[in-house]
């Protein structure tokens, strides 16, 4: 079959069951846009390429399929970088296709030529500059395979314009190589040592990270926790792997973790870390973190082993296999009595209850209220970065793995709105609710216009504290209340939303919020709630920076 390079790309996208792409056209990528014009693929035109990359990422995180974004050469490509870096840090499978100047112009600083492959090497799992048409189809297939396999991540394909236009032979079909299961002796021994360590422990805790969601192994993790009778805590990225309703789930751990969760981790004698990189937001001071503990680390990526904290037992490989093997081992062993440990945890739970104030409008109450009033709908919660993100993580009642999307690793303000658009498109049967700060909303807020054009019934809750709240919080606590560049003047979000074509209301108290949320749930188009809260509201709890995670500033 003779096809142009652009047509080959479209064919390859269809082979991969791509139904939606997010992008923005321009000179070098025009041939691909021409092929997309009558392809059975939905193209979502964003306002900015950063929006396209975040939307592809949000799409991928919400449904588990590879997200695809497209941009032109030069500025189009550079605008993708923040989005790719965000996907990279959170191991999200995204394929980016960029146009490039024609092969004969490469290296001459031609109009809109930029070395996007060089530029994105450190923020992609892999990237390609396509140098001849004959390798194009195989590169696209490889890109999808690399993005989705092992530890997922973004892959960029840079395609010169002449290759998009050239005609060549296209051979359909693709092979999927499955990664081999680990069977070597050291692996088996590590699994047995891990089981022994847990059997001999008194105070074990399972720590679940985003890897459980990337590897889609939450069922196995829950089953294992159940078999062992081990309590579980989660990182920001792992939220949803366990339901807040699970009796053995203690909540989020880390800098703004729940106190019970942080106490349990601090006092534990064994930590079973699964699909987590033991990031500094989780461990705070590393040496205090590991003191008196056996650390068992399960991850698909060998490079994570002992990178941030030294692990005593490392099990590298497919998480599903490891979790199942461990589960089988424990089923054969007599069960261990952790009742004293559970009692201790129950005491912390009593000591640190989570309380809500409804006297004035505040974010924790709103999170609880939304969770309780989502009216039986399946939901995808998306956040941006800042105080609202922590309030959402702490107080939303997250029950399933794919209902929580937050840019944990890179902490990218501006991620929220476009990612929510991607999620709402991937999951039309669910209600996507974005929780965002007034600062972060302004960064990519024009994508509201994208949500309107795509006819998405998105709910946007702007926690409007008229401040770059999280930075302001640190200034209040650690910089003698010198609020340098963090106080924002009033902005008319309602008029802005109306200008984009969205519905919007501003609320000042719980009852107004409650009726606005009810209205939003009925709305068929994007609905923005501007929730005004006190500038001085702080995120509680907060671990003293550089201390152990049971020492709280507040």
């Amino acid at each position: 079959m003779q096809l142009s390079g652009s047509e080959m790309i479209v064919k390859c996208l269809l082979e991969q069951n791509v139904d939606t792409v997010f992008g923005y056209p321009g000179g070098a990528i025009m041939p691909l846009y021409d092929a997309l014009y009558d392809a059975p693929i939905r193209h979502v035109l964003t306002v900015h390429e950063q929006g396209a990359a975040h939307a592809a990422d949000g799409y991928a995180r919400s449904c588990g399929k590879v997200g695809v974004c497209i941009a032109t050469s030069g500025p189009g490509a550079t605008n993708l970088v923040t989005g790719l870096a965000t996907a990279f840090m959170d191991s999200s499978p995204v394929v980016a296709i960029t146009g490039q100047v024609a092969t004969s112009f490469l290296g001459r600083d031609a109009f809109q030529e930029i070395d996007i492959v060089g530029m994105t090497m450190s923020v992609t799992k892999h990237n390609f500059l396509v140098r001849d048409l004959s390798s194009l189809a195989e590169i696209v297939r490889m890109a999808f395979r690399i993005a989705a396999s092992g530890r997922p991540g973004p892959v960029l394909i840079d395609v010169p314009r002449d290759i998009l236009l050239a005609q060549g032979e296209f051979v359909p079909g693709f092979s999927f190589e499955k990664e081999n299961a680990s069977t070597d002796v050291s692996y088996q021994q590590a699994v047995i040592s891990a089981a022994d360590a847990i059997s001999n422990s008194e105070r074990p805790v399972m720590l679940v990270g985003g890897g459980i969601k990337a590897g889609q192994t939450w069922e196995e993790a829950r089953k294992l926790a159940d078999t062992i009778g081990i309590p579980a805590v989660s990182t920001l990225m792992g939220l949803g792997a366990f339901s807040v309703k699970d009796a053995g789930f203690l909540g989020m751990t880390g800098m703004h973790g729940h106190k019970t969760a942080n106490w349990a981790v601090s006092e534990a004698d064994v930590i079973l870390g699964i699909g987590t990189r033991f990031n500094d937001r989780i461990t705070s001071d590393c040496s205090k973190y590991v003191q008196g503990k056996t650390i068992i680390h399960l991850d698909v990526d060998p490079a994570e082993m002992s990178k941030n904290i030294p692990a005593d037992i490392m099990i590298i490989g497919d998480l599903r296999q490891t979790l199942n093997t461990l589960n089988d081992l424990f089923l054969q062993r007599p069960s261990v009595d952790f009742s004293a440990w559970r009692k201790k945890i129950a005491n912390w739970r009593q000591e640190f209850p989570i309380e809500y104030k409804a006297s004035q409008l505040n974010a924790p109450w709103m999170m609880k209220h939304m969770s309780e009033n989502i009216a039986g709908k399946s939901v995808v919660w998306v956040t941006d970065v800042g105080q609202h993100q922590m309030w959402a993580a702490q107080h939303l009642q997250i029950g399933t793995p794919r209902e929580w999307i937050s840019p944990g690793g890179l902490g990218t303000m501006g991620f929220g709105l476009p990612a929510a658009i991607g999620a709402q498109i991937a999951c039309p049967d669910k209600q996507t609710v974005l929780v965002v700060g007034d600062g972060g909303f302004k960064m990519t807020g024009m994508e509201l216009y994208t949500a309107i054009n795509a006819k998405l019934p998105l709910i946007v809750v702007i926690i409007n504290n008229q401040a770059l709240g999280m930075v302001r919080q640190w200034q209040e606590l650690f910089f003698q209340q010198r609020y340098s560049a963090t106080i924002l003047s009033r902005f008319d979000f309602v008029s802005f939303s109306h200008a984009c074509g969205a519905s919007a209301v501003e609320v000042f108290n719980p009852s107004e919020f409650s009726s606005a949320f009810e209205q939003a749930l009925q709305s068929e188009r994007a609905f923005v709630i501007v929730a005004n809260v006190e500038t001085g509201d702080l995120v509680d709890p907060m671990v003293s920076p550089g201390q152990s995670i049971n020492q709280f500033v507040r």
Partner: protein
Amino acid sequence: MKQTVLISLRNQEEGLVRLIGVFRRRGYRIEKLSMSINQADDMKILVTFSCNQLTEHQLLHYVKKLIDVVTVEVVDDHSNFAERYITAHQSA
């Protein structure tokens, strides 16, 4: 501490840059580097580097993660080995 590794790479144009990028990004200092490309277009690279707080073990994991990298071996000493090895590879 110094360490020498022999890396075999598929000779894609970006392979070498990607490899060196890993050393730089993860804070390892390259002290010596020799490379050769043979007719079959695969590339051998011999690198001596000094470690920072991350161990050389860690670096090897990052290097192995690169899609273009075929094998990585720790070898004894750059100077004795390099010239002979690289010459042999080129004529192979």
